[in-house]
């Protein structure tokens, strides 16, 4: 699955278009949709964390939903009990979750990939009941309700100046999320291009060879775990901001599965992958549930079953199909498609110019 795709040079033009698209998006969609896109971006941040761990360092975690829960509860408790500004709590939540993830990475060092998957899966299943226990701190089953965030004056003014309508709290959450997403994606991009990223990939592709080349295996593996958890913690904290509510049941084991689905759909070991994955993982079940009943060719009984089944069926099917047919995800499909297309076009241009495309014999 982790076969290396040729690393393509960064396409700054595409990045600029994407950034402008996301900045301008709330001015053309309504407030509710902005809230939805904020959720997709939050997923994208958590998936980027998972991608650093799974895609780049080759360790499988099925418990990132639990790290999101830790981040969300840290922020919620700080804001609710200690009356801190929620925005200030977001980096604190990220750092705390990162430290916990780092500590979790230490025993994880001794585990093979399979055992790690098993232990983190158990963590994800147990997390809701662990959260319920200190009921005074976490609010128990009821969870913690937070006041909806109020956009500050400068943001209100800027938004009204641009669109002519007042800014809602969903739109403000969207922009906060976008700011964190941009920062964290930029950091991840820098991380994987430089020394630590290369070290992690070396460990993934051959632990013994990496150790022989002087890579500090234990250090980089736990570092990957810590960074990955930091991303999940910030995503969790933003999640609490977006929904104004955290409870044990907002972080079920299916959330961890959803993150894995996103990482796999988008494409592991790629930077745009988690963004695409987050958007798909969030909108796929919603859109397919709206699309299926409108199709007359699908028998109504099957259609209603699909709608009742909720996201689980589409997630499960997508996981299996992608892993069998396109293990590098959507980014992998695009990259291979693009390379093939370019090779074919170049071949056509060469033929028109009266030159044969080079083959093995003529090059010799």
């Amino acid at each position, binding site marked *: *699955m*982790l076969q290396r795709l040729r690393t393509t040079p960064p396409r700054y033009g595409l990045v600029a278009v994407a950034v402008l698209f996301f900045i301008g998006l709330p001015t053309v969609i309504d407030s509710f949709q902005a809230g939805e896109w904020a959720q997709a971006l939050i997923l994208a941040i958590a998936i980027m964390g998972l991608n650093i761990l*799974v895609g780049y360092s*080759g360790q*499988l975690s*099925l418990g990132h939903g639990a790290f999101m829960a830790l981040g969300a509860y840290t922020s919620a408790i700080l804001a609710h009990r200690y009356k801190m500004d929620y925005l200030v709590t977001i980096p604190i939540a990220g750092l705390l979750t990162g430290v916990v993830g780092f500590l979790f990475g230490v*025993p994880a060092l*001794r*585990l093979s*990939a*399979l*055992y790690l*998957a*098993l*232990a983190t*899966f*158990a*963590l994800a*299943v*147990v997390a809701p*009941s*662990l959260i*319920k*226990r200190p009921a005074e701190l976490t609010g128990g089953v009821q969870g913690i309700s937070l006041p909806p965030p109020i956009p500050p004056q400068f943001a209100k003014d800027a938004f009204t100046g641009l669109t002519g309508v007042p800014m809602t709290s969903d739109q403000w959450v969207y922009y906060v999320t976008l700011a964190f997403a941009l920062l964290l994606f930029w950091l991840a991009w820098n991380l994987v291009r430089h020394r630590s990223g290369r070290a992690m990939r070396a460990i993934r592709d051959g632990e*013994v060879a990496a150790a022989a080349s002087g890579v500090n295996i234990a250090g980089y593996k736990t570092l990957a775990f810590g960074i990955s958890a930091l991303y999940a913690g910030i995503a969790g904290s933003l999640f609490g901001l977006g929904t104004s509510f955290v409870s044990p049941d907002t972080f079920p*084991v*299916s959330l961890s*599965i959803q993150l*894995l689905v996103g990482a*796999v759909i988008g494409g592991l070991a790629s930077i745009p992958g988690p963004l695409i994955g987050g958007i798909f993982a969030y909108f796929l079940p919603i859109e397919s549930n709206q699309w299926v009943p409108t199709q007359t060719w699908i028998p109504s009984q099957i259609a209603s*079953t*699909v709608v*009742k*089944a*909720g*996201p*689980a*069926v*589409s*997630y*499960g*099917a*997508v*996981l*299996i199909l992608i*892993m*069998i047919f396109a*293990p590098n995800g959507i980014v992998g499909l695009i990259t291979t498609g693009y390379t093939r297309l370019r090779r074919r076009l170049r071949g056509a241009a060469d033929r028109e110019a009266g030159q044969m495309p080079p083959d093995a014999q003529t090059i010799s």
Partner: protein
Amino acid sequence: MQELLQQVVSGIAQGAIFASLALALVLIYNAMGLVNFAQGEMAMVATFIAFTLISRGVDYWIALPVTLVIAFAGGIAIQRIVIHPVERAPLLTLVIITLGLATLLNGLAGALFGYVPRSFPSPFSVQTVDILGAFVSYRDLGVIAVSGAVLLAIYLLLQRTTVGLTLRAAAHHPEASRLLGVHVSWMLALGWGLASAVGAVSGIMVAPIILLEPNMMQTIIIYAFAAAVLGGIESPLGAVIGGLIVGVTVNLAGAYLPFVGGDLQLAVALAIIIGVLVLKPNGLFGRPTVRRV
């Protein structure tokens, strides 16, 4: 003392259920070095099949073997359709596919049968019988008897028959077996079929106790993970003993440790998993492995 004995016996009954599911995990682990995250959901689907049969008026003792045969065929079908195309893929791919399978089966069961918990019939009454001063329910004894019979059957199949020998050979030395004319890929499918049937027993045994619904195996599979890890994930005997130990430990912790109570029993299983993996990764009965570079 009497209460302690009672807790131990009901712990053994629960442990027998965990042991069946853990044995199913071990069978697949031995066949292809993979932990099947979908094992619990496969058992849940089988239990729904048994439920459908019984509610259509089929006698329990006919529905049980029929379900096991269906589960066996289903396990083979799943291996052929989903696992076979990626048999040689990296472990990460296989693990993600079994997770996808678990999610898919869970969602399908939810769509077809709904999420309302249903009571599942048990042929054993919940009346108790006095054994050495402890009151033990017939249901617990029945669970122990049925699980024990299934485990014994699997043991005999693996150790005393040609099919079992071929199965083990294909798992341990696939290349050599292939040279000797063993159809290794179909042996893997057979392993999946057996695991599916053994897992189905755990689902059918646990359903009367915790009510039948699509998510019912989500906690049981964690206990089974703990059992398999504790026993050494490649050892069938270890899975059984691990299952019994986990069952008794969890039950005693729930009864006697006030901070555990009923709702943190699952956390005990998590603690067992992490503790064993960190302190003794090969479990009680696993052989230490040496990896060659």
